[in-house]
């Protein structure tokens, strides 16, 4: 694993996003639209909020994630830039990990904007276990980015969507469960830790598997 090469790719991805701003705009508008729709469809009480917020957070993450992963490869195909990368003296795994890290950072930043926004607009007061909530989000987003970016590297787009569902659902279920426990049943915190452990195991396993498989997937 070559850190310098990975950093070159991550830097380029982030700079591209900075210039294009497509993901950030998409998620902001999408989240605002969802918040508006939600607040007009229900009479929202603090209790109800606690019920719907975990799902809400993960739905926004899924939508932006899928768009982000898809785009991170499709813009490379535009002028055949991917071939440019494949011809260059860098490892395929560096291209993949660089992109995955960039996607993770983009998702993380958009969540950092959207989640507080959500809390403010819904007037949702949640102060306990904020640090645990942060850890759950980071572990979840990391696994999601690793798997999503890997699948996006598969040149067959239909396969991308077909495999996405079974491959990321364990992670998303665990993520939503942990968030729910954090928001709703604060006294069952130890249950949350088993979900969190599962997410960490998922991240480690899929990172290793994707790292080994990427040579057979990217550009083939």
């Amino acid at each position, binding site marked *: 694993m070559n850190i310098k090469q990975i950093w*070159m790719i991550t830097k*380029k991805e982030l*700079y*591209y996003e900075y*210039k*294009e701003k497509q993901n950030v705009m998409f998620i902001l508008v999408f989240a605002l639209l969802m918040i508006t729709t939600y607040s007009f469809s229900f009479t929202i009480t603090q209790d109800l909020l606690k019920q719907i917020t975990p799902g809400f957070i993960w739905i926004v993450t899924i939508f932006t994630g899928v768009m982000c992963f898809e785009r991170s490869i499709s*813009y490379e195909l*535009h*002028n*055949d*830039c991917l*071939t*440019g*990368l*494949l*011809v*260059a*003296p*860098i490892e395929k795994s560096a291209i993949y990990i660089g992109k995955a890290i960039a996607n993770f950072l983009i998702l993380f930043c958009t969540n950092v904007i959207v989640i507080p926004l959500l809390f403010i607009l819904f007037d949702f007061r949640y102060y306990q276990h904020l640090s645990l909530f942060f850890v759950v989000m980071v572990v979840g987003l990391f696994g999601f980015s690793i798997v999503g970016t890997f699948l996006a590297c598969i040149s067959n787009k239909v396969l991308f969507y077909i495999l996405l569902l079974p491959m990321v659902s364990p992670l998303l279920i665990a993520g939503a469960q942990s968030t729910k426990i954090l928001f709703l049943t604060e006294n069952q915190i130890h249950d949350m830790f088993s979900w969190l452990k599962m997410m960490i195991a998922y991240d480690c396993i899929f990172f290793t598997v994707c790292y080994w498989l990427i040579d057979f997937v990217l*550009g083939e």
Partner: protein
Amino acid sequence: MIVLHNVQKKLGMRPVLRHIHMEVKKGECLSIVGPNGAGKTTLLKVCACIHQIDAGSMYWNGQDVYKQLTEYKRNLGWISHHHFLYENFTPVENLRFYSELYGVKNCEETIKRWLKIVDLYVFKDIPVRTFSKGMKQRLSLARALLHEPSILLLDEPFTGLDQDGVQLLFHLLQQEKEKQTAIMMVTHDFSHIEKISNKVIFLHKGEIAAESVQTEEKHIKEMYKTLVDER
């Protein structure tokens, strides 16, 4: 010097290249011609190690390419009708990214020099998406040459260039030949071949159908016609 020995490549289930034997010496330009779908681009991609070969071997300076892959790739330049440029980046940003990839020393100086060579220095801070096709192709020349490759792979490099651009490319290729760069060029325009090439190979249905050291346009046209008619 690159040598391909009995190289075979399948894409999907189809054999696209079969029994390819060829050799390109330093300072030599080899042209590859053949009808659409003959496998020319695939051959270049194999040489660039984008596609792994299924059988056979490939040597660079007497050693197996796959045993010195990073070093080999660092010495590779690729120009095609796809220009590999990021539309939202400016020429400077594009070239900066590629020079980082190739570890070019004195990056900013080199970029400036190349932008002047391809006559795009005044457009250096304008996003590439606003460029015309020919301008992008010129920039792509700079992109491919700024790390001073010793092997050049060209896939229809003249596409989109105006007369000045074509002259510029010939001039650059001539310079590269003097610098002992090995060049492989795929083209459909036979008039370009005699100006620069030392050798031509005819590729047909994935096999080398003929080779010739005579590179005059008329000769190549005749050979091409007989070969295509024959098969």
